C-alpha cells in the first residue's frame, strides 16, 4: 500500500540522547514522508527547544510566546506550577502556535523518539491543519499574530505607564469576563490584517497627538446628543447602533459612551485575541485528530522503512496509545470525550472504509467506501470542516460501536436520566447528531446579545439571553459579569433570559449599576 515500502534504510537513531544534527536528520525524514506521501502543505517550521520551566511559562499565557501582562496569567502559572511540582499533571510534550513561521516548542527532556513523534504531530500535523482548514484561513492571520501580540503587549505596558496598572487591570478584567462573547461568530467580509490594524492604531494615535488642540476642550458639547426625529424611533435606534449585536466587546468598543480611546483599544486587543483563538475552540477534535493521524502514519512509515528501530517504535506506541485512550464513563479517569481519541478514530475509520469497505459502509458513506482515495477524503475533511460538521458528516457506525457510545436524556425536571439511544441501527443517527451538537461551540456558549439601549432615558443597556433547551445562566457568574459590563458601559445594565420559541421572558436579572466605572 505504501509507495516505497520495500526500501530498507538505516535507523535514524538508536539511542535516547539527541543533538541538533539528529533532530535535523529526523526532521528531513519526516518531511519527505509528509510531503511525498501525505501531500501536506505546511507553513515554514520553526522549532524551539525549551526547558520545562519555560514550558510552564508558555502555558500561563495561553501558549503564546509573548502576551500582555495580567494577573490572571500569574494565577494560572502559579496553579500549573504547583500541580506540576506535586506531580498531579505532566507537561505537554509540545506546544504549537498558529503562526507563520509555525513555531513548535519541544521540551529538552524528551527522548529522540518523543521528539520524532512531536515533530510529526506538531510541525506537520497541526501545521498543515492551521494552514489549510477553512476556519483558520478565514478567521486568523498567521502571518500577523506575533507582530500583533508584540504590539498589544507594548501598548498595554504603555497604558499601564500612562494611566496606572490598576486602571488597565480593571479594563482587562472586564474584557476577559466578556471574552467568549467577544467574537464574531458569522463571517463578515475579511477586512484588515492584524499588521494593518497595528499600523492603523499607531497612525491614529500619532494623528491625534499632532492635531491636538487644547481649545476644543473648552467648546461645550451637548452631553445627550440629538436624536433626529423619525417614524419609528426604536427601529431607527436599533439600526443606528447596529443592534442586535452578539459581539459584546465589539459593541462596547464602538458604542460605550464613556470609554477613553485607550480603553477602547484594550477591548479591541482582547477581542482580536478571542477571535484568533475561536477557530481552535471549534476544531479541537479535528485538529488533534489530524495531528494524531499524521504522526501515526509517519511513525509507522518510518518503522516500515527501517528508519525507526523496534525499540523506538514500541516507545512511540506506548505514548500513542495513552494519547488516544478513551476511558469509559464509569472509569474514575473519565472526563468527557477525548478529542484525540475521537478525531483519530474517525480518520482511521475513513481510511479503512476507503480501502476495505463493508456493506454497511457502502450504505452509510457511498462516496467514500471503496474509493481507495483515503488521503483525498482526509485532505477534504481537514480543509473544509469544523468539529460539529465533521462529526455530523463522518462519524460512522463502526466508531460508535467501538466507543460504545450511548445517549442520555437529562431533563432537570425529571428525577431520573433516560437512555434514549445506543450504538445500534436505531440509535446511530441520534447519537451522532447529539455528539455533533456537543461539539458546537455556538451551542455550548450562551447566546447573549445586546438588544437595546435606552438612549433617550438613562442609557440602560439591555441584553438578552436566548435560552436553548431551558438551560439558563449560572446566576452568580452572570451577575459578576454584568457588574464588569456595567463598569465598561458606564450606566445600568439589564439582562433578560428569553425562550426563543415563545419569546416569553423566563428570567430577569436585577438591573446592575456601575460600581467603579472605568471612565
Amino acid at each position, binding site marked *: 500500500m505504501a509507495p516505497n515500502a520495500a526500501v530498507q534504510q538505516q535507523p535514524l537513531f538508536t539511542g535516547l540522547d539527541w543533538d541538533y544534527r539528529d533532530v*535535523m536528520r529526523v526532521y528531513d525524514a519526516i*518531511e519527505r514522508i509528509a510531503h511525498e506521501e501525505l501531500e501536506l502543505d505546511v507553513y*515554514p*517550521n*520553526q*522549532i*524551539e*527547544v525549551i526547558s520545562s520551566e*519555560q514550558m510552564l*511559562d508558555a502555558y*500561563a499565557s495561553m501558549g503564546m510566546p509573548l502576551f500582555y501582562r495580567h*494577573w*490572571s496569567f*500569574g*494565577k494560572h*502559572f502559579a*496553579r500549573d506550577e*504547583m500541580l506540576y*511540582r506535586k506531580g498531579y499533571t505532566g507537561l505537554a510534550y509540545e506546544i504549537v502556535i498558529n503562526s507563520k*513561521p509555525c513555531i513548535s516548542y519541544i521540551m529538552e527532556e524528551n527522548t529522540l523518539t518523543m521528539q520524532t513523534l512531536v515533530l510529526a504531530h506538531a510541525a506537520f500535523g497541526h501545521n498543515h491543519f492551521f494552514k489549510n482548514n477553512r476556519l483558520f484561513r478565514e478567521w486568523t492571520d498567521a502571518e500577523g499574530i506575533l507582530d500583533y501580540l508584540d504590539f498589544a503587549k507594548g501598548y498595554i505596558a504603555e497604558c499601564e505607564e500612562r494611566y496606572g496598572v490598576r486602571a488597565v*487591570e480593571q479594563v482587562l*478584567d472586564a474584557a*476577559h*469576563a466578556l471574552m467568549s462573547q467577544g467574537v464574531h461568530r458569522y463571517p463578515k467580509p475579511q477586512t484588515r490584517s492584524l499588521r494593518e490594524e497595528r499600523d492603523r492604531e499607531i497612525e491614529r494615535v500619532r494623528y491625534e497627538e499632532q492635531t491636538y488642540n487644547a481649545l476644543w476642550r473648552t467648546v461645550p458639547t451637548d452631553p445627550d446628543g440629538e436624536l433626529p426625529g423619525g417614524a419609528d424611533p426604536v427601529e431607527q435606534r436599533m439600526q443606528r447602533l447596529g443592534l442586535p449585536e452578539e459581539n459584546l466587546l465589539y459593541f462596547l468598543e464602538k458604542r460605550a459612551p464613556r470609554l477613553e480611546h485607550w480603553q477602547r483599544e484594550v477591548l479591541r486587543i482582547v477581542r482580536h485575541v478571542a477571535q484568533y483563538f475561536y477557530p481552535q475552540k471549534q476544531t479541537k477534535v479535528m485538529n488533534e485528530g489530524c495531528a494524531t493521524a499524521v504522526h501515526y502514519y509517519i511513525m509507522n512509515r518510518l518503522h516500515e522503512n527501517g528508519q525507526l528501530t523496534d525499540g523506538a517504535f514500541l516507545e512511540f506506541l506506548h505514548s500513542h496509545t495513552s494519547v488516544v485512550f478513551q*476511558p469509559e*464513563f*464509569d*472509569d474514575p479517569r*473519565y472526563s*468527557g*470525550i477525548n478529542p484525540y481519541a475521537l478525531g483519530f478514530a474517525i480518520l482511521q475509520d475513513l481510511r479503512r472504509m476507503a480501502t476495505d469497505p463493508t456493506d454497511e459502509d457502502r450504505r452509510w458513506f457511498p462516496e467514500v467506501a471503496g474509493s481507495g482515495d483515503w488521503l483525498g477524503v482526509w485532505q477534504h475533511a481537514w480543509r473544509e470542516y469544523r468539529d460539529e460538521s465533521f462529526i455530523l458528516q463522518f462519524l460512522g457506525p463502526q466508531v460508535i460501536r467501538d*466507543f*460504545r*457510545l450511548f*445517549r*442520555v*436524556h*437529562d*431533563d432537570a425536571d425529571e428525577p*431520573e*436520566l*433516560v*437512555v*434514549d*439511544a445506543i*450504538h445500534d441501527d436505531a440509535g446511530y443517527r441520534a*447519537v451522532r447528531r*447529539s455528539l455533533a451538537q456537543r461539539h458546537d461551540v455556538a451551542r*455550548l456558549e450562551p447566546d*447573549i446579545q445586546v438588544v437595546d439601549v435606552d438612549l433617550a432615558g438613562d442609557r440602560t443597556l439591555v441584553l438578552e439571553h436566548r*435560552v436553548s433547551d*431551558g*438551560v*439558563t*445562566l*449560572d*446566576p452568580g*457568574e*452572570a451577575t*459578576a459579569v454584568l457588574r464588569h459590563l456595567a463598569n465598561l458601559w458606564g450606566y445600568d445594565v439589564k439582562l433578560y433570559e428569553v425562550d426563543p420559541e415563545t419569546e416569553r421572558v423566563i428570567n430577569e436579572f436585577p438591573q446592575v449599576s456601575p460600581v467603579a466605572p472605568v471612565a
Partner: protein
Amino acid sequence: MVNIIDRRRNPKGKSLANRQRFLRRAKRQVLDAVNEASGRRKVTDVAGGEQITIPADGLHEPSFRKAAGRGVREHVVPGNKEYVVGDTIPRPDGQGGSGGREGSPDGEGEDEFTFAVSRDEFLDLFFEGLELPDLVKRQVKKAEQYTQQRAGYSVSGSPSNLNVERTMRNSLSRRIALRRPKGEDLQALDEEIDRLERAGTEPERLRELIELRRNKQERSRAIPYIDPVDIRYNRFDHVPQPVSQAVMFCLMDVSGSMTEDMKDLAKRFFMLLYLFLERRYRHVDIVFIRHTHVAQEVDEDTFFYSRETGGTLVSPALAMMRDIIEDRYPVSDWNIYGAQASDGDNTPADNPATTRLMADGILPLCQYFAYIEVGGGQAFHVPSDLWRAYDRLARSESPLAMRRVQTRGDIFPVFRELFTPAELKG
C-alpha cells in the same frame, strides 16, 4: 526549510511580572494565609519560603456560563455495557457519580488555590507597610554616607568625566566666532587651484587664490579645532547622605516562670522584629538583652537558640539597657527603640524599681517602646504585676505600647499593629 532554535538559555521567569500582579491582587488573601502559615512553622524557619493556600474568591474570573442542573441536556457517553433504549439511570448526586461530571462540561471548578511563595516574596508581604515609628534624623553622621550628585560642568576634571557634547558645542561656537575656515572650503579651494593650474589660463586669479589659500591655512593653524578653553567636564558633588541611626533593644525574659510555649512566642516575636529590621533598615543596630534575675547582653545566636533559666527580676534588664544607652548610644545621635517580651511575672519587690527605671530612665530616651506580654492562653486574663505597672505609664503621653499575645496566631497581627504607621491605621 526548518529552523531550530535553542531557547533554553533565554531568561526564565517570563511570567514574573504576571506573578507580581497576581500577588498584589491576592494580597489580602495571601496576607491571611501567610499569617496563618507563620504560626505553624518552627521558630527557626519563620523566614523560609512557604506553600500557602488561598481561597479562590476575589481571584475568580467570571464568565457567562450555562447553569448546571437546569433545562434539558443530551449527553453522549462512551463505554455502554448494559444499557438499552428506555433504561433509566438514577440521577447522580453531585460529583463523583457515574456520568455525573457531564453535568458541567463547560466550566472548570475552582476551589482553594495552592501555590508556593519564595522567601523574599514571603517577607515582603510580611512586612509590607510596616515602619519604625517616629524615626527622626537626629544627626547627620559625618563622612559615612556620601552620594555623588551631578552639579553642572567644570573646566577641570579627569578625562573619564569629559563631556563631549558640551566640549564640541563650545568648540563649534568658538570656531564660528573666530571664522576658522571650514575643511570643505579649503578643499574646494584646493580643487579650484588644481583646475586653474592645469588649465593655466588665468594666472592672475590663480595667484590670488594661492594667496587666499595661504591665508586661510594660516588662520586654520592659528585657531585650533578644539582648544583647551572649550573643554568641559561633568562635575559631581559629594552630598552627605543623612543617615538616621537607630538602635533596637530586644529584652526577653527567659526566667523559670516562662514556659516553653511562652518562650517560643517571645522568640517568634523577636525573630519577626529581627527580620523586619534586617530587611528594612540597613543602619539599625540591634542589642539583645535577656534576663532572669540577672541581665546579660548576648549575640543573636545565644538570644534565639540557647536555653537558660532562673528567677525573675525585670529592673536589671532595664538598668542594663539604660547603661548601654549611656555608654554607646548617645540620645542626641540615636533613635532608640525598645521591645520587651515577658510573661509579666516580676518579683513584687522589684516593681517600684522597674516603674521608676522605665518612667525616668528609659521612656524619656525612647522613640518607641513595645511591651509584649505572652500568656499561656488563659481564657480570662488577670493583669500581671508588670502589666499593671506599665499600664499606668502607658496612660500618660508616653511612647509605650502594650499588647498581649496568647497564641502563635496572635503574633503577626500584634506585630503589624505595633509597627503600622499611624497614618495608615485609619
